[in-house]
């Protein structure tokens, strides 16, 4: 993977939500790199800043109340954060596309699937009606919704949950985007369907050579699909590495605890570990390392000094004063 081309880079991104005099620091300077043909899993609990990250990349952060306080998002030598809304529109859908969590809510109920695909083709690729419809038919075949194009004339409510998510994916990849954001794309689906959708995303990634940001709260799902994994906690990346290294040798206590909470056939009969407490609210992030109130290894230093994200020679990055130390569970 080392020779893969860097596609999109998030540098020191900081986001703050302002409600009156209250400031909530949703992202506190995160760095992420995305490569072509690579799925980068971003894992964290609800409220850790996963979705804010994707909204910033899409240029759809609602402002107010959201405000980008620092950083750059580099894509094709452009800092996306400096683009106007009009310029950003030519990236959205065209070069950077997105798949959402609940297809039944994120698809427009009043339009046929065909229309929801072709409107993008006509807008971004200037196709005429017939050509767009032909292409939409191909796309449906590509995502496994049949080659006869029957789904083109279906409304979202006529499709099952899995089919809707496939349709959503067809919409997202319609213009051959360079970069795809998948925000919990399988969370609303049955377990059996989850695997199919994950496989589909992998296949399409290879076929189209896209870089993928795969957001999930479920480390198990990320293990299935990702090539590289970053763990986010309270608006900061706490650990980041290739999947193999991360799962073989997690260094951050938070990552270890997350892994212990994945059900595993080898530990059948044992209680699943849970992490006490919850992600702190963005307007009340603890001092020092934000994880210290929940961390089994926390000491005085962790309470006052925020550890930096440091990488070792094989690119495994971790932000912890006690990286790699173990404790008695």
């Amino acid at each position, binding site marked *: 993977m080392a020779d893969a081309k860097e596609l999109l880079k998030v540098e020191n991104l900081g986001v703050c939500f302002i409600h009156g005099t209250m400031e909530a620091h949703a992202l506190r300077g995160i760095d992420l790199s995305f490569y072509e043909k690579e799925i980068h899993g971003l894992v964290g609990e609800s409220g850790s800043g996963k979705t804010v990250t994707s909204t910033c990349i*899409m240029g759809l952060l609602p402002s107010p109340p959201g405000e980008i306080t620092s950083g750059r998002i580099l894509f094709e030598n452009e800092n996306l954060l400096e683009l106007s809304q009009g310029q950003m529109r030519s990236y*959205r*859908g*065209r070069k950077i596309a997105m798949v959402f969590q609940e297809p039944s809510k994120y698809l427009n*109920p009043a339009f046929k699937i065909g229309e929801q695909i072709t409107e993008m083709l006509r807008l971004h690729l200037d196709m005429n009606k017939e050509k767009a419809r032909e292409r939409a038919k191909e796309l449906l075949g590509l995502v496994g919704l049949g080659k006869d194009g029957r789904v083109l004339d279906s409304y979202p*409510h006529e499709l099952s949950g899995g089919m809707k998510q496939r349709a959503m994916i067809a*919409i997202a990849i319609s213009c051959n985007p360079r970069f795809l954001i998948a925000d919990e794309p399988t969370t609303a689906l049955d377990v059996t369907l989850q695997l199919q959708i994950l496989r589909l995303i992998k296949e399409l990634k290879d076929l189209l050579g896209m870089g993928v940001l795969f957001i999930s709260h479920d480390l198990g799902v990320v293990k299935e699909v990702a090539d590289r994994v970053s763990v986010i906690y309270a608006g900061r990346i706490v650990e980041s590495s290739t999947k193999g290294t991360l799962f073989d040798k997690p260094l951050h206590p938070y990552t270890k605890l997350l892994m212990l909470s994945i059900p595993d056939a080898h530990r059948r009969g044992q209680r699943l570990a849970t992490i006490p407490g919850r992600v702190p609210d963005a307007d009340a992030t603890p001092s020092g390392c934000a994880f210290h109130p929940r961390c089994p290894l926390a000491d005085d230093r962790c309470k006052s000094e925020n550890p930096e994200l440091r990488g070792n020679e094989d690119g495994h990055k971790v932000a912890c004063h006690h990286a790699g130390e173990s404790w008695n569970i």
Partner: protein
Amino acid sequence: MDFVKFFARRLGRLLLTVFIISTLVFFVVRVIPGDPALIIAGMDASPEDVQAIRVKLGTDKPLLSQYLVWLSSIARFDFGTTLISGEPVIKLIMERFPLTLTLALLGISIGIFVAVPLGVMSAVKRWSLWDYFGLVFSQLGMAIPSFWLGMLLLILFAVKIRILPLFGADTPAHFILPAVSLGFARAAIILRMARASMIEELSKEYIITARAKGLTERMVKYKHALKNGLLPVITVTGIQFGYMLGGAIIVEQVFSMPGLGRLFLFGIYQRDFTLIQGGVIFVAIIFSLVNFLADILYSIVNPKIRVE
């Protein structure tokens, strides 16, 4: 296929409504004190005369057989003859209906063409000058009674400025003021609905998808949100239109227009049971029919409703 089933279900509901209303009207009229035969015959009539009228009206028969006769005549749109003039009720209604229909069409058109754009703009540009104008407009429309507005308009345009006729329904110009005074109130209601519904749709998740697809704001709002946002507007407009087809008693009175409202009012003054009864049934049928059509239109715009 879904559509055929939906159509059949709604048609069944329409027929059921008409049946229930017919039944209600039949029994209510019979429960109300006062024998129609006595009223027709007058104070001094002999018992034989009264009985003869009862036989003619059919009110001497048992209630159940009267009810069956009643239902079968409703099914044939036969509402009987009026007690006073002896003319068929349906003929009187049909003479007046074109005027009421014209007035209702004009009124609802004013309502739609003013309120829908204004309501949508209010929602899209929320808390802007547009929106405040829309809010004030709808407040006034709901607060001002149509007949009072009608009188003010008459005073202004027919008495002071004298550019429009005062009473009657002879020329198209006669319809302008009544249509405006009826339409204003409808517009207020439709505007509120259009605004609320657009605001709701604009906060839905599929709007985020539309933006993520790189669509222009114009497409996001006037294509994706609008098609969904107009759905409740169709229903409300249908109901308002149905109301107006029943005749606008007070506005017709103010403008001296011979519409359904005045016909029914006349029937009530004269204690003309068959006319009142026929009028209620007619209004109920028309109202149900308009709602039926609104539902069908709704299902064309939003096919999802067909399976719910």
